[in-house]
C-alpha cells in the first residue's frame, strides 16, 4: 500500500497534514502531531497585524503614566530586551523544524507588502520547508473592486515568490466571482500549492451584550462540499499542488478529497475535537478504506472523481444543481 503523495514539491508519507491551528503553538505540540502521524505540519499563523498591534500596545502600556509624578517616574522595570517582533514565532519554527522529521510549513498572514516579504524571508531562514500564505482580507470598503482584490492576491504571491526559494502555498477564500480564473492567475504567479478553502473569521452577534462577538466554530463534515467541488474542477488543470481543507472529520472525507484530486488533505477541527491522536485514526482509516476497496496507492485514487475523469463532467457544473433539486423530490413522489 503506497500512501505517499507529493505536495508543494515535497514528498509526504501520506496525504494527511495538520493544518494551521493552536495545536502547533509549541515545539512539544508539533512533536505530538508528528508522533500522532501527521505527514507535515502547517504552523499556526504569524499575523503581521497582531505583531504590529502587540508592539504598539507594549510600547504604549510600558510608558503609560510615566514621567508624570515625581515619586513614580515609571511603573514597570526597565526592560529593553523584550521581543515583540516575529522572533518568538521564528524561534518556534526553527526549533520545531529541528525537532521533527516531517516538513514544517510556516503560515503567514501579512498586511503590508514589506511584511509579507520580510516575514517570508525570515521563515525561510528559520528553516521552514514551505510557506502557506494565509491571505485574509475582507474588502469591506465599498469602493474596492473585485479586480483590485484579485490583483492584491496576485501581487502578494509574486512578491513572496520573488523573495524566497522554498515552495509557497496560498490558502484561498472561496469568495471570488471566478474561482477558476483566480486559481489560474495564482498558478501563473508562481504559487506552488493552492489550499481550498480558508474558514476565516465571520463575526457573530452576542445578543446578551448587544455586541459584535468574535467567534470561530469548528468545521463540520458537510463543509467539504465547496472545496470538493473546486478541487475536482481544478484537478489536472494547474501546475500547483492542491491542498484540501475544511470538514475532514472521518477517513471518508479524506478519500473524497483525494478522489477529487487533492494532493494533501488538511485537518484541524477533528483534532481539536478528538485530540491529536485522532490523526492515527484518520491515517489508519484511510488505509483500511483503501484496502477494503482494493486501492493500491494514493496516486491511483487521486483525481479519480475529478471533473476531467468522471463520466459526466457537467455533473460539477449546472447539472449538479439540477440533480440536487431532482433528488430532493424523493423516490415515491
Amino acid at each position, binding site marked *: 500500500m503506497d500512501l505517499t503523495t507529493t505536495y508543494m514539491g515535497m514528498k509526504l508519507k501520506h496525504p494527511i497534514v495538520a493544518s494551521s491551528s493552536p495545536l502547533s503553538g509549541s515545539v512539544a505540540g508539533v512533536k505530538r502531531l508528528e508522533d500522532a502521524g501527521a505527514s507535515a505540519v502547517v504552523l499556526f499563523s504569524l499575523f503581521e497585524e497582531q505583531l504590529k498591534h502587540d508592539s504598539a500596545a507594549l510600547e504604549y502600556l510600558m510608558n503609560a503614566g510615566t514621567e*508624570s509624578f515625581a515619586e513614580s517616574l515609571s511603573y514597570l522595570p526597565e526592560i529593553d530586551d523584550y521581543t515583540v517582533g516575529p522572533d518568538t514565532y521564528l524561534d518556534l519554527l526553527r526549533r520545531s523544524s529541528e525537532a521533527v522529521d516531517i516538513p514544517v510549513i510556516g503560515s503567514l498572514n501579512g498586511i503590508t507588502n514589506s511584511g509579507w516579504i520580510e516575514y517570508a524571508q525570515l521563515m525561510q531562514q528559520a528553516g521552514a520547508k514551505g510557506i502557506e500564505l494565509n491571505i485574509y482580507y475582507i474588502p469591506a470598503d465599498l469602493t474596492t473592486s473585485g479586480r483590485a482584490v484579485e490583483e492584491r492576491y496576485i501581487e502578494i504571491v509574486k512578491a513572496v515568490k520573488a523573495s524566497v526559494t522554498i515552495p509557497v502555498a496560498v490558502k484561498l477564500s472561496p469568495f471570488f466571482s471566478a474561482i477558476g480564473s483566480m486559481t489560474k492567475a495564482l498558478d501563473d504567479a508562481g504559487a506552488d500549492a493552492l489550499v481550498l478553502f480558508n474558514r476565516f473569521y465571520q463575526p457573530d452577534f452576542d445578543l446578551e451584550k448587544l455586541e459584535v462577538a468574535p467567534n470561530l466554530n469548528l468545521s463540520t463534515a458537510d463543509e467539504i462540499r465547496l472545496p470538493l467541488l473546486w478541487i475536482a474542477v481544478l484537478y489536472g488543470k494547474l501546475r500547483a499542488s492542491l491542498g484540501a481543507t475544511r470538514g475532514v472529520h472521518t477517513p471518508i472525507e479524506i478519500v473524497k478529497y483525494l478522489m477529487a484530486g487533492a494532493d494533501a488533505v488538511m485537518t484541524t477541527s477533528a483534532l481539536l475535537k478528538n485530540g491529536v491522536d485522532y490523526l492515527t485514526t484518520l491515517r489508519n482509516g484511510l488505509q483500511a478504506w483503501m484496502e477494503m476497496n482494493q486501492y493500491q496507492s494514493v496516486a491511483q485514487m487521486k483525481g479519480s472523481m475529478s471533473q476531467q475523469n468522471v463520466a459526466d463532467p457537467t455533473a460539477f457544473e449546472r447539472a449538479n444543481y439540477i440533480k440536487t433539486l431532482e433528488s430532493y423530490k424523493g423516490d415515491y413522489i
Partner: protein
Amino acid sequence: MTERQVTTIDGNEAAAYVAYRVNEVCTIYPITPSSTMAELADQWASEGVKNIWGSIPLVMEMQSEGGAAGAAHGALQTGSLTTTFTASQGLMLMIPNMYKIAGELTSAVFHVAARSLATQGLSIFGDHQDVMAVRATGFCLLASASVQEAHDMALIAQAATLEARVPFIHFFDGFRTSHEVNKLTLLADDEIRAMIRDDLVLAHRARALNPDRPFIRGTAQNPDVYFQSRETVNPFYARVPGIVQAAMDKFAGITGRQYNLFDYFGDPLAERVIILMGSGAETACETAEYLNQHGERVGVIQVHLYQPLSASHFLATLPASVKSIAVIERTKEPGTSGEPMYLEVVNTLVEAQTAGTLPGATMPRIIGGRYGLSSKEFTPAMCKAVFDELSKERPKNHFTVGINDDVMHTSLEVDASFIIESDKVVRAMFYGLGADGTVGANKNSIKIIGDDPEFYAQGYFVYDSKKSGSQTVSHLRFGPDPIRAPYLVQSANFIGCHQFNFLDRGDVLKNATPGAVFLLNTSPHEPEEGWDRLPRPVQEEIIAKKLKVYGINAEKVALDNGMGTRINTIMQTCFFAISGVLPRDKAIEKIKYSIKKSYTRKGEEVVRKNFEAVDNTLINLREIKVPDRATSTRELPLVVSANAPEFVQNVTAMMMAGRGDELPVSALPVDGTYPSATTQWEKRNISTFVPIWEPDICIQCGNCSMVCPHGVIRSKFYNEASLETAPKAFKTAPIDARGFPDIRYTLQVYLEDCTGCGLCVEVCPAKSKEQSGHKAINMALKEPVLENERANIGFFETLPEIDRGRVDFSTVRGVQFLPPLFEFSGACAGCGETPYVKLLSQLFGDRLLVANATGCSSIYGGNLPTTPWAVNSEGRGPAWSNSLFEDNAEFGLGFRLTADKHLEYARELLKALAGRIGEELVDDLLNAEQITEIDIRRQRGRMAELKLRLREIDDPRAAQLLAVADQLVRRSVWIVGGDGWAYDIGSSGVDHVLASGRDVNILVMDTEVYSNTGGQMSKSTPMGAVAKFAAAGKQGGKKDVALQAISYGNVYVARIAMGANPQQALLAFREAEAYDGPSLILAYSHCIAHGINMQRGLDQQHLAVECGHWPLFRYNPAVRESNENPFVLDSGRPKIPLKKYAYNEVRYKVLVHTNPAEAERLMEMAQQGINRRWSVYEDMAARDGGTFVPKFK
C-alpha cells in the same frame, strides 16, 4: 592609560554604578528619591552585570528599611561587602541597626539621596534633615554636590570605610542631585579596582562570624565595662579624616579629579566666606566666582566630610583673611541654638581661639542660616544675599534665605534680578503634560546632545502633585563647558509650551529672556490661528520681550502619524529645528538615530511611525508673526472661583498657580492643619472627552456613579416642581420607581473635574435599542457642552441633598444618592483604588476617621495644594490624617482608643449630670441603638439637644462633656492603605491591631505592587508578574493575608473587587463597619502599574475573579453566634485559566516576550497555586459552622 568614558546619567545612577560594583550584597527597599539606586542594582543583577570581583551581587528586597538595615547588618557581620540605598523615613528606620553597625566597627557605606523628614507634613523632596538625624549613630557623613561627585564619592567612601572600619553615609541632595541628569566621566572598572584594597576586604571577611573560629559579638554589657567599651572606638574615628583625605588623594592620582575634606573656592584673601555642603555648594562657588570677577573678595568652603569634622583640615582651609563666615544648612532643628554644622564650626573656631590656632589674627564673626528645605530653590541671588549679609555690621544670625519669614523676620532680602546664567549656555524650559511624553523626549535630547563631545548637558524635571493630567516643567541647559548650576533655569532663551491651555494656568513666559524663542503647541488650533487664540497678557508679554514665536498643531501631526496623544517626538523635533543647539540637519539625523536605537526592538513599525512624525513635523512647523500690539481681548481666567473660601483664595490658589514660593511664613498653618474639600475649586479640565448622560436610555442603576474614581458622577431625586428654575439644557428623567409620579431623577456629570477615564461607560449596562454600542452614558467632546453643563451643575447643586435616612444603603442603586465626601482627586485617570475610598466616604463619611498609610492614597488624599476629602451640607465629613508608612495600623488604633475612652468618659459624665440634663434624654443617649442610618440621625438629634442643655449648665463637668460629647455618635474608624503597607512594612502592626479585638476597620487597596514609588514588588505581588525588584517575574506566591486574619476567629475578613461584584463590595463595607470588632477588607485595585488600559480596569477585576486569582468571600464572625458557617464564598469556581486574565496585563505579558519558557513555568505554577487555594476556600465554605473558632464574647 584608562580610556575615559563620558556619559549622561542622573545622580542616583552615578552613585549606584559604583556601589553595585564594590559590594556583594545589596539589601533594598523602595523610598523616594533613592528608589532608583535600588532598582538599578536589581536590574543589573538580573542582567548579570558583575562587580569588580567578577561576581553578580546578590540583591534582596526587604519588608522595610528597618529590615534592609537588619539584613545588611547580618550580611556585614558574616563578612559580605554590603550596601543599601535609602532616604528620609527609611534612614530613620535604619537608626537602631546603624548604631550596631558602627558600634561593631563595621566597614559599610549606605548611599542616601537626602530628603526632608515628615514633620508638619511629608515631603519627598531634598534636604539634609535625614542625614543630620543620624549624626549620633557613629556613621561618618560624606557629602556629594553633583552627579559627578555622587559617582566619585561613592568610591572614596567605600575605600575609606574598608580602611577606617567606620561605616559611612554617602549622601547627595535628593532630587536636585539624585534626579539631575548631567554629563560625567564614568569610572572604569580598573579605576574602581585600584581604589579598593583586597587586603582590607580580606580583613573585613576575617572579622566575620565563622563557626570555624567562633566568637560572640553583640553581648549585653553591665555598668562596669559599657562606658569604657564605648570609648574604645575613639582612635578609629580619629583616623577617619586622614584616611578619607588619603583616599581622595589616591583617587586624584588615578582619575585626575582632586577632592578634599574641605574644598575652598574663591579669592585666597577673601574676607567673607560661606560654608555649606551638598548641591548648594556648586551654586555658591559659581556665585563667588562671578562676584570676585566683579571686584568682590569672597570665598566658599564646600564640606565633603562633615562628620567627623576635622578641625585641623578645616582651619587649614579657612583663609586667614576671613572676617565673617556664614554656615548655611539645608536642614532645620527646631529649638536648638543653631543648626548642627553651624554649631560645629562655632565650636571648632572657639576651640581654635582657645588653643591659639586660629588661621587669622582675630576670631571671625560666624552666623548660621537655613536654605533650601524640601528642594526649595537655592539660587545665585540667594547666595549673594548671604554674602551681602556678611558685609553688614550686624548681620542676622539664624537667618533663612529663599523664603519670606514675616513672623520672626529671619529671612534675608533677595534681589531676584541677580541672574548669572552664562550666554554661552542654551537654557531651555519645556512645559508639558505627564502623558504627552515631554520629559522622556527631553531626557532623550540631553543624551543626544550630551553624547556630542563638544557639548555638556544638564536636565532637571519638576512635576506637580497630581498623578493624572499633571504638568511637568523640564529645565535643560546645553553648553560648551561643564554645567554647574543646580537650580532651575532662571532666564530661558528657549521656552516650549506643549499644551496650549497651560497659557491660561500660569505665567509660562515668566522666565523667558528678551529675544528668546517660544515654541507653542497650538493644538487644537492650527498654528495660523495661534496668535489670535492667546490671552491678552500672554500676547503683551511676547511683544514686550520680543520673543520669536513658532507654532505647530502637534496633536494633529501625532494623530495623523498614528502616535495617539504622544506629541513628544514632534515637539522634540521642533526644538532641534529652531533652537540652534545643533545644526538642523545634524540634529534631525541624531533624532532619527536615537529613535532607531530606542525603538528597533519594539518593532520596525514603531520606528517608521516616529521617522514619519519627524518628517511631517518639519513640514508643519510654522513661524507665527507677532504684531506690534496685542490683539486679543481674552483675559486670563481666575485661578479659583470668587466663591472659594478666604484660605483657598489666599493660600491654596497661590500654590495652584505655581506661586507657592511667594507665600510668606504667616500665610501657612503652624501645625500642618489644612481645610477639607478643596479639590472642588480646581476645575482642572484635564480631559477633552467626558461622559454625557442619556436620560432616555438610563435605568438609574447607579453603577457609573459607584465606579467613578473621581467622584464626578452625582445623582439626585427631587420633586418636579424644583425644575421651574432649571436651565433649559438641564437633563432630567422620571425616577425609575413606581408610585412616585412627581419625582424626577438627574445624573449630573461634573465635566470640569472629569479625567476622561471612561470607566463609567464601560460599566453602564443600559444600551440603546436603535444604535448598538450607544449606552446611557457615552464619552463625547467636552467643549460643545461645557457652557450648558456649567449652568446645569450650578442648578444641580441647588437641589436639596437627599436625606440620608431615606437612602437605601444596601444597594448600589441607593448608594448613588449619597454624596461622595471624597471627590475630584488627582489619582491616575481610572484609578482602581479611589472608588473604594469614595464609597467609604459616602457610607460613613459624616462620622468617619481615616488613618491613611503613606502611599498613593495619602498622596491623592493629602498632597497639597488640595484635598479631595470633602464636607457635607451639614459641615460634617471625614477627618483624615497620615502618620507614616509603617505605623498606620497602630495610628488608626489610636483613633479607636480615643473614641473608646472618650465615649466611656462621656457616658460617665452623662450619668453624673443626668439630673440636670434630664433623665429621659440621658437614658435615650446612653441606650440608643446605632446600627442603621436612621438610628444615627436620631442620635444626632439627641446630641443637638444635649449640647443646648449643656450650655445652660453651670458646672465644669458640662464643659468637659461638651468636649467629648460628639463621641456619643458612633465613630467609624478606618485604617486605609495599600499592599506595600499591609503586606510588608506595616504587616506586624496590621497583625497586632487585628489581634487587639478593637472596633477598627482596615481597608487594604491591593494593587499588588508599591504603586506610589513606581511599581516595586511587595509580598502581594502574584507569582509570574514582573515588577521592579522582580524583573524576571515574581518567583514566590502572593501572601494570603485573609487566611492569616481569619485564623484569629474574631476578625471580619472580606475579599472584594468592585469591578466583579459591586453589590458584594458594598455588603462587605457595611458588614465590616457594623461588626463590633476588627475588620479587614482586601480590595482588588487595578493599577496603572499593571500595564493595562485603565479603561478596562473593571473588566480585569472581573477576570481576576473569574479565573480564581481573586476569589470573593466574606468571613463574618458575627454569624458564629448562630453557629453557622461564617465563611461565605461569593464567587464561583474558576471558569477561565489564569492566563486569560493575566496576559491582558503587561506585567505578566512582558515575561512572555523576554523569557517565554520562564513565563510558561511560572504561569503553570501560579495556576496550580490558584487551584490549590480554591480547594482550601471551597472546603472552608462547605464546612460545618461548628468547626470554626467560636464567637468570642
